[in-house]
């Protein structure tokens, strides 16, 4: 049983530490990604997005 206790304890500790680092990295980087996503969406012309989005029209032909 001691083996399992140590295993779960180490697993919990290691994942919490890595997760804390990931949260900081993604929180900061995610903001910049949101800005890029919104910029990219606002730059897309209506005609361009119409062509890209309706892949079903290709399926029909």
């Amino acid at each position, binding site marked *: *049983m001691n083996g*399992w*206790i140590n295993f*779960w*304890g180490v*697993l*919990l500790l290691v*994942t*919490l530490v*890595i*997760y*804390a680092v*990931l*949260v900081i*990295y*993604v*929180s900061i*980087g*995610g903001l*910049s*990604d*949101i800005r*890029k*996503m*919104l910029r*990219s*969406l*606002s730059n*897309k012309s*209506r005609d361009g*997005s*119409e062509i*890209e*989005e*309706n*892949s*079903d*029209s290709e*399926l*029909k032909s």
Partner: protein
Amino acid sequence: MLETNFSALDWAIVGAYLVGTVIIGLWVNRYIKGMGEFLVAGRSLKTRLGIATMIGSELGLVTAMFAAQKGFSDGFAAFHIGLMAGIATIIVGLTGFIVVPLRRMGVMTIPEYYQKRFGSRNLRILGGFILAVAGILNMGLFLKAGAIFVSGITGINEDAVKWVMTAMILLVLIYTCLGGMISVIITDYVQFVVLSIGLLVTCVIAVKKIGWSTLVKGVDAIYSDQGFNPLIAEGIGGSYVVWMFFLGVISCAVWQTAVMRACAAESVEVVKKMYIWSSLGFMIRFLIPQFIGICALVYFFDLGSAQPFFDEQGQVSNDSNVTMKAMPVFLGQLLPVGLLGIVAAGMIAAFMSTHDTYLLCWASVLTEDVFNPLKSFKMSNRQRIRMTRVFLILIAAFLVMWGLWYPLGQDLWDYMAVSGSIYFTGAFAIMMMGLYWNKASVVGAYSALIIGTFSVLGLGPVQEYFSLKEFFNRNGIAAHHIGLTVSCLAIVGMIIMSVSFPNKETSSEKI
């Protein structure tokens, strides 16, 4: 009423957070130009935001509730669920299993893949219908779990909470109907940040208050070896661990909400990176709430029998509605004012975020994979968006009814696994064989889908309806045995039927 530290300040924090979330949804409406933006955010998702949104949609209030309940019911042994999920996701990320070929095909939904791969519109319609039914049933008890959480952490009456939750569903509908996937991504990001920080701090406070050695001794006193070793047959058992690994693969590679994220990624490379990094999230979404559930178990055990979670003999309650309440009640007593509001706001936002993802997902499947194909793809963009919004409202109405009516009778996680398996047992066979075996045929795919629906026999009320409950109990057949058996049968059935009925050169159903 159970004691809680929840105060007016905490209510103010929750209110401000929810209003802010809705404002974001309304603000991004300006970016919606067509179905591509509405469903997959114009395929403009980058790695870091992809990771945040993928974890954000999976680390929800409902996940926290069922995972904490598992920690409360199984002790440290419950950690195997998170471990299996993490291993499965990292394998999918490294190999690109299923998700990379799917992204390359450029599909938006899994039934759309059925049509592209097998050339059958009817297969897409049937697959879409089964997927939507299973998915809607799967989220059928989200509202109930949310109500139990709010009632437990705030201490308000459970009946009053139902009205609060219904109001929250309405808020979700407003910003999902208007903002589509773009608002879903941004609100998932905000929720990921707030909830992750809140949960990490909660773990630290819980360990400081209870102590690691007290936790270990407490679990040992309550569950003995079974509380640590998941392979003991009298406890969880090896077959359940295998089922959890299979569910780990399904959750990240076959479940429509995760696949939608892969389909929204900018490139195949981004898909792989998203999965490798998200593997940690898929593990942590179980580990942290399970750990809080374990802390609640030991905390209430040490308080004695003067509370509802244990019977007079000191045994953990068998009532799943009671064990689900342990985690929020524990948080209400553990966290200080202010931090309690932030965690509650993060959880409630997570509840909304999970709902928006799932509502959008199933509504879009019904539109794109059932009704648009039925109308020979003649629906305009405007009609498709309008129909998706109508389905959003209908599904939300169904959820309110189902959440109030359905008797749970088993752990929430097991209910969700079984209801989801109605779809994913067949879908896994079709996707794996369809992507990696050239001879997979449309008849084989139909057979896999139909065989998969037999997973519904894992639900308690269905077993009672068909008078099978006693038979299953007598022979030691649990829901996960049924799920694993049906999964294998779906694969075998697909192989046999594909060999027996190969695709013809020309088919009238061909696209």
